[in-house]
């Protein structure tokens, strides 16, 4: 599938709903597990807020802020004729006046994440007569394009090289934040343009957190999710590293969590709901006596879609009935708190194939050890 096919699918969806004009919004914060309608439609990653106006019968238009991003927006090429402005509302009002859309025939995606003052101004322009279209928009085409899958593979390779770097550098006495910064810089040198890099260490982690100024100590369990973005496509691997020889219990529990992860991954195939992956993971942990830890507050989700753009098929969660399709990409991460060991992390990015799942990482999760 390519980007044009995605736009065609969205336009078909608009047609089915009687929508003539779609306003796709971006708040300029690209995140691995939050959608960005502008990036989904055209790949452009906003510096400030931006919109794509997609007409059912007419050209699309990209409107971006700030004005200083004019050259970059113009170079994006698809959709052409971009406007870069510091007055988004004014530019949008002028464009919408030109559209002459019949009241009730326009829809919007991503309004809830926009700054509320801008959102209110936008609603005022449309006099409130605008349909929220998020579910239909992302549901119209939830598969990654061939280009996005290629970027996901490259991002996965960068994440794995990042892990190798972590194993080479992490030592007692080093601050978590210094290690995280170095890994970030290293992955940038490999081509990453952003990174959602969580990393923390403790003898007993309650959860994974952003890195702090704490110094890593012998006996810590370091947990991390390395989430580089390559040309706008995030991918995530989750890993656990013992600082010094781990207790036998840590090894045993880590094996359990990895087994749970593979139970989930082996379930994946087109046509099943996401909830089945979560259920497969839960079954392994429940059988080991951890049913209580498979529910909130200990557990919310066991993976998620990977943006930016669409984050379909959403969370690996018991209440997600989204049906898998070929070329969906997401991360499966059991990432489980266990009372004996604290939080343990393992997770792999996967692509749904015609018959199952392809793991995008080459070397999958195993407990890593920094020797004493």
């Amino acid at each position, binding site marked *: 599938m390519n980007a044009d096919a995605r736009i065609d699918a969205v336009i078909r969806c608009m047609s089915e709903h009687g929508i003539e004009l779609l306003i796709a919004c971006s*708040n*300029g*914060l*690209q*995140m*691995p597990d939050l959608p960005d309608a502008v990036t989904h439609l055209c790949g452009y*990653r906003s*510096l400030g807020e931006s919109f794509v106006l997609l007409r059912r019968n007419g050209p699309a238009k990209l409107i971006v802020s700030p*004005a*200083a*991003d*004019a*050259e*970059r927006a113009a170079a994006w090429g698809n959709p052409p004729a971009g406007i870069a402005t510091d007055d988004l509302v004014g530019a949008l009002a002028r464009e919408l006046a030109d559209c002459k859309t019949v009241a009730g025939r326009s829809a919007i995606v991503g309004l*809830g*994440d*926009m*700054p*509320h*003052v801008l*959102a*209110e101004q936008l609603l005022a322009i449309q006099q409130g007569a605008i349909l929220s279209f998020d579910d239909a928009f992302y549901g119209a085409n939830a598969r990654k394009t061939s280009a996005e899958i290629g970027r996901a593979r490259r991002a996965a390779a960068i994440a794995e090289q990042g892990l190798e770097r972590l194993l080479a550098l992490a030592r007692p006495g080093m*601050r978590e*934040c*210094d290690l*995280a*910064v170095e890994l*970030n*810089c290293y992955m*940038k*040198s*490999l*081509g990453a*343009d*952003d*990174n*959602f*890099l*969580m*990393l*923390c260490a403790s003898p007993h*982690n*309650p*959860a*994974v*957190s*952003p*890195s*702090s*100024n*704490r110094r890593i100590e012998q006996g810590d369990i370091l947990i991390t999710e390395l*989430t580089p973005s*390559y*040309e*706008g496509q*995030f991918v995530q691997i989750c890993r656990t590293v013992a600082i010094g020889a781990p207790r036998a219990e840590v090894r045993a529990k880590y094996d359990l969590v990895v087994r749970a992860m593979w139970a989930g991954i082996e379930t994946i195939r087109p046509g099943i709901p996401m909830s089945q992956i979560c259920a497969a993971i839960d079954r392994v942990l429940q059988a080991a006596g951890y049913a209580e830890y498979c529910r909130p*507050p200990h557990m*919310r989700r066991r993976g998620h879609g990977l943006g930016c753009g669409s984050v379909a098929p959403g969370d690996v969660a018991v209440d997600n009935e989204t049906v898998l399709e070929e070329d969906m990409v997401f991360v499966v991460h059991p990432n489980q*708190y266990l009372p004996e060991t604290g*939080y343990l992390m393992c997770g792999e990015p996967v692509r749904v194939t015609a018959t199952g799942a392809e793991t995008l990482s080459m070397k999958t999760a195993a407990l890593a050890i920094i020797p004493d």
Partner: protein
Amino acid sequence: MKNTALLTGPYDWGPALLPLAEFQARLSAARRSLAACGATSLLVHGNSIEYGALAYLTGFVPKLGPAFALVPREGAIRILVSGGAGMIGSAKLLTWVEDVRPVGNLRNTLHEWLGETVRDGKATLALWGGNIMAQRAYSAIAGAIQPFGSIIDMDDRLDALRRRKSLRELELLREACRILAIARGALERATGDGSNARNAALAAERAAFAAGAQDVRILASARNGGPPLPFDDASDIRVAPLLASLGVRFAGYWAEGLITIGAPQGGALARAEAALRAMLREVRPGATPGDLARAAAQHLTSYKFHPLVETSVGNGIGLSFEEPPILGHEGKTRFEQGGVYTVRSGAMGERGDNAIVSAMVAVTANGIDILWASINHSASKTTTKGPR
């Protein structure tokens, strides 16, 4: 500036960086403003893109999603943070505030807090940082306050508290500028040694982090003389002149620098530098951005204002990369004693003969203290003709 998905540098709060007394003074001032406006409670919002107001009162920098400080007219502050209960320990390291909790359901959490803290069941909730709040969060807040009273926007009134920097804030800004100078030096050296733009920027980033930066954001030309842009892909090319925008954060405080490397002599760079010198001579309490723009224009001769400075000569800077006032060419705002500003100059010629430069200045009683500048300047203190 390009946003980033997660902040990873050293953000833990400590009294050695910014003492508790400084926060208490800020809190008292904010509460006086609340009382003057008849507000019973204050909600301060921040996210990883813009957190200036939240950090000003609490030191807290939200790394994950939005965060909210709930400030009653009297009594303890509470901070609500994104993320689960297991992350609270790490979130507490970022602030002096002791009561840090997960946001959970914002509407319910806020409703509960209002019920606990307001008298007579009536509240006027002041919002600070509300303009940048996501529509979804604002709707939740509006729903929570509805049974108690109403919301008032206090951005302008409370942002005014941040304009005049304290002595300690000035020290932190100086340190940010010191790191900025290190980053600039690393960028120039790497470029001089033959590195292309992407690798040179990475060298500057590493140098800044090694010097203590919390965050570094660098944009650079993607073509000869092109505007500073984010590195969208892995390509690494050599460009000259290289126009770069450097942002360096220390202890929450930003320093900004615009620089031009490899420009031919006597062209746009000479104009932009001359214009910046002229602008700096104009800065004093009471000066307007128009004064600076007119001074700059005299030195541009056949060159145009660079698009980056076409409409403004700079802005306030501190806990926010761009904080009020925005110094629009036609604006009526005036430079204030105690304010810290980034002042920008740029010239655009033909065939890539473009240049940008800037300076960070603290306005004193009768002139400026130059905290950093991309041009040579004979002394760090410039005394001008006196306040207008």
